[in-house]
Each structure stands twice: as C-alpha cells, then as structure tokens.
C-alpha cells in the first residue's frame, strides 16, 4: 500500500493536468467549481467534453499498461511490446476495415468487434506459426510476431489506399492509426471502465503463472506450470486487452513498454504488485500525454501516438543501450 500511494498521487496529478490542459486552459479554481456543480457554460463544457475524455485516456492507458506487462511477462523480455506479437497490427486492420468499409453496422460496435477479431486472429496466427514444430519458444514467437506485424502494417496501408474514396475521410483513419482518444459518451465510458476492471481481474489471475514463467520455461514447468498452455491463455488475454486499448485509443506506441518497466522498477518483479502498478502508470502517462496533445498546438490537436513516441522512443533507446552494455 505504501508503494501504491505515490502512484495514485501521480495518477491524480496527471488527471488534474489532463483536465486543465487544452487550447483553453482551465484554472484549478474553474476545475473545482465545475466539479462542485457549477452550471456555467464553461463548467458544463469541462464536465461534458473534457473530463470524459481525460478519464477515457486514463482507462486506455491502464489497458496499455496491463497489456504490455502481460506481453513482457510472457516473452520474458523487458523490451517486448504488444506490437511485437502482431496483436496491435491485427487490431488496427480490424479497425481500418470498420472505418473504411460500409458494413451497415453501428460504427462503435463494429470498430470494437473487428479490432478484437483482428487482434485475436493475428495472435493465433503468430502462435500457430511459432508452434508448428512443437512447443512454441520465445524466440520463435517473437520472430513470428515481427513478421506478422510487418505484413499487417503493409496490408493496412494497402487497404487505406484501396478503400478510401471521396465518401470516407482518409484523414480520420490516418489520425486514428497515429493514436488518439475520442471523447466517449457516458455509456462508452461505462463500458470502457468495465473493460478495465475485467482486464485487471484477468491479469491478476495470470500473476503467479507470469512469476513462474519469469524463472524460465523449464523451471516454471518444474514448479507445476504447463508453460505451453499458460502462454496460449496469457497471450489471448493480452491480445484482448490490447484490442480494447486500440479500439478506444488507436495505435498508441511505447506506453506498453514504458509502464511495465517503471512498474517493475517501483514494485519489484512479482506480478501481483507489478500489474496494478503498470496499469496506474500507463493511465498516468496516457492521461498526461493526451493533455499535452491537446494543448501543444492550439487549436489543432497533435495525435497522441506522436507524443508518446516522442517521449517513449528515447526511453526505449536508453533501455536498449543499457541492455547492450551489460
């Protein structure tokens, strides 16, 4: 609990910053009066537009933090990212189809459903290829994931070129693939909250298995885990979480890498503590970056994925350099 407090404080600060930031900055005083029931237009705009968006950013960040932590645990590699497994790429294909093909379905559910479907099938494909010759090992999974992710990226670009015409706005798809939180309505926010709670509960059920897997596949087996079965389940849970994050926030890079890293540094490697910490850190990062995205080039909005990549890229390189040195 002592370790959770600073994380909660960081998240609260990020939420407050997110609520204030924008092309029209809100002072703490204005924020406070809006929260205490003020009915002025400015307060209503804050309550109806900005706060749901800030909360959605935090929730998407929590999903990215959890998804990243699960993938790093499964791959036993601190440099692993959900993107490496093709999950994000698969989700992005599904979402691109939902955005560009007139399917006659309601836009929200189609986007969410196809993102899920894309992430799950891409992950299955990676697992199937990696497991062609018996037990899927980590290197095989990573290589299969990289190859699939590259192919899916090319396919997505092709679909965008082939399917866009005057009736669909390529700009929308493009800005979505660069990452960006949409302002949800109350029902959307409730659904997203439910997804985060479910994701956290499922992740925590994986905690012991991820701990054991961290000892190595053979040692995990020795301590009573069926590694092949566990990896299959954990990857699917991770893919589901990543798909939900992609459906709500587009392709947001590096949060799934940074959040688990900081969480492990803060709580130690045991996943029962590290998973919730990663969710909190991911929430704080996306919340703060979303605030920056809204405030840095007013009145335009910079894609969220650009901000996270700008901060996350150097972080990744730093980790890589440290890892190469030892």
């Amino acid at each position, binding site marked *: 609990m002592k370790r959770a407090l600073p994380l909660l404080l960081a998240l609260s600060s990020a939420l407050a910053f997110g609520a204030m930031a924008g092309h029209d900055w809100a002072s703490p005083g204005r924020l406070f009066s809006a929260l205490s029931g003020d009915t002025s237009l400015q307060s209503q705009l804050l309550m109806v537009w900005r706060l749901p968006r800030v909360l959605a950013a935090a929730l998407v960040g929590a999903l990215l933090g959890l998804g990243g932590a699960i993938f790093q645990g499964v791959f036993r590699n*601190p440099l692993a990212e959900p993107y490496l497994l093709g999950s994000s790429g698969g989700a992005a294909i599904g979402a691109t189809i939902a955005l560009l093909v007139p399917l006659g379905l309601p836009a929200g559910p189609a986007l969410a459903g196809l993102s899920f479907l894309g992430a799950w099938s891409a992950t299955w494909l990676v697992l199937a290829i990696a497991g062609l010759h018996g037990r899927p090992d980590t290197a095989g999974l990573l290589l299969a994931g990289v190859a699939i992710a590259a192919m899916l990226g090319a396919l997505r670009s092709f679909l965008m070129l082939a399917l866009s015409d005057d009736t669909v706005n390529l700009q929308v798809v493009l800005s979505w693939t660069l990452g960006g939180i949409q302002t949800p309505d109350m029902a959307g926010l409730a659904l997203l909250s439910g997804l985060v709670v479910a994701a956290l509960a499922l992740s925590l059920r994986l905690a012991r298995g991820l701990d054991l897997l*961290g*000892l*190595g596949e053979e040692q995990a*087996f*020795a*301590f*009573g885990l069926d590694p092949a079965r566990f990896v299959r389940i954990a990857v699917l849970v991770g893919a589901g979480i990543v798909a939900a994050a992609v459906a709500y926030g587009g392709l947001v890079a590096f949060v799934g890498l940074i959040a688990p890293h900081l969480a492990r540094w803060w709580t*130690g490697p045991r996943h029962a503590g590290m998973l919730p910490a990663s969710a909190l850190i991911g929430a704080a990062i996306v919340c703060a970056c979303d605030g920056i995205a809204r405030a840095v080039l007013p009145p335009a909005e910079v894609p969220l994925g650009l901000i996270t990549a700008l901060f996350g890229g150097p972080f990744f390189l730093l980790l890589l350099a440290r890892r190469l040195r030892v």
Partner: protein
Amino acid sequence: MSGVECRSIRVEAGGKRLLDDISLAFAKGTLTGLVGPNGAGKSTLLRVLAGYHRADAGHVLWQGRDLADWSAAERGAAGGYLPQQLEPAWNYSIEEVVTLGASRSTAPRPTAELLAEHGLSDLAARRWNALSGGERARTMLAATVAPRPGIILADEPGASLDIRHRLDLAHRLRALAETAVVVVIMHDLDLAARFCDRIVLLDAGRVVADAAAEAVISDPELERVFNIRLQRQALERDRDWVIGLSA
C-alpha cells in the same frame, strides 16, 4: 507404489537415438546417481522422468500412475525437478524465488522457515544478479524441496559449487533420500561413489551398468565409458574426505 518408473523409453532427435529402450525404477529411501560422459543422455533421461520432455516411446509412472495423467499442479506439488540451467528474466530476490517454489503446495510453508532451514535468512532480500553460483544453487534447492516433494530429480545441482558446498549438498541429498525418491545427475564420480546408494551408468543413450554404488565404481565398464583409468581407494561412506588431491 511410491516411486518413479520408466518403461521402454525411447527418445530421438535429428535422426539420432538419444535414449534407447530405457527401463528403470527408483524407490524411496535410495539416493540414485546418474553418471555418464557428456552426451550420454543423462539430462534427457531426467527431463523425461520429470515429464518435461515427452518420450517418443515408452511411459513414465509416478507413484504407479502414468505421468501423462497428472495435472501440472499435482505434478508440481509431488515432484521437485531441478533443471541444470536457470536464467530468470527478472531480478527476483532469494525470498521471492523460495516463496514461488513453496507456492506449489496447497498449504505453503512459511518462507522465513524455509530460508532459515537452508541458511539463507540473512540473504533473503538479495537479488538474483548479486548472488554467487553457490548462493543460487542453495536458493534453487530450497525452492525445489519447499513443499517436501516425494520425488526429487536434480540435474547436476553441484555443478557451480566449490568442494565445501558440494559436500554440504551431498549431505542434504542424502538426508532428503530418507523420505523421497532422489535421482541426481553427478559428474563427480568420487562424490557419487561415497554418497549414492545406487549408480546408473549411461553411455550413448543406453544403461550400461545399474547396481549398488560400490559395484559400479569397481566395474571396468566405468573406465571404458569415460575412457580413463581410475585408481580406487576405499573411504568411509558419507564422510567429508576429499580424494584426488596430491601434494
């Protein structure tokens, strides 16, 4: 039946037969040493006995029941398999590793008690990267035997230990063999001769000798298999004498 048994085990890889028709039974109260030159198939056999490597033919039975019928959790609680290599992805502390080992029991023993039992209390918070080979080996042994498994299969647990710690380990394995089936791969023939009750000598995937330790040590097959000449000297069993040194 409270032992480990394998029947007609055959393992092939890349067209090569790694284990060829191996049938062995191990009982409680006996410390068995698996010896043989590099590539003889010792580690493969141990992995098959542990269930980690599925044999191409044959069966493994734990307590009379086919190992394929055991759930992973049951297997983890009843068995203590100690692989040769351990490279944790995360920098766990000794306490965390021992807790994880103990967690496979339905009623895990308190970690503090386990750490004290293995003389690791003072090092509890020390992280993996900062441990010596000996400390790592002691940690893994503590974690492996934490739920008091009835079956212990260890792949060269003494490999990275100095002679003092190797002797300590041998005494521990002897003590464990009082209440469990213990099968250990050993490269140190001297220790195997003095601490094991039984030695199984493997060569090129086959059992070439399987008898009481003294009998195998005096078997000329041993010299042929290792392509060495041995000078044998009788020493009291279970004592901490070191042989093979000359001034």
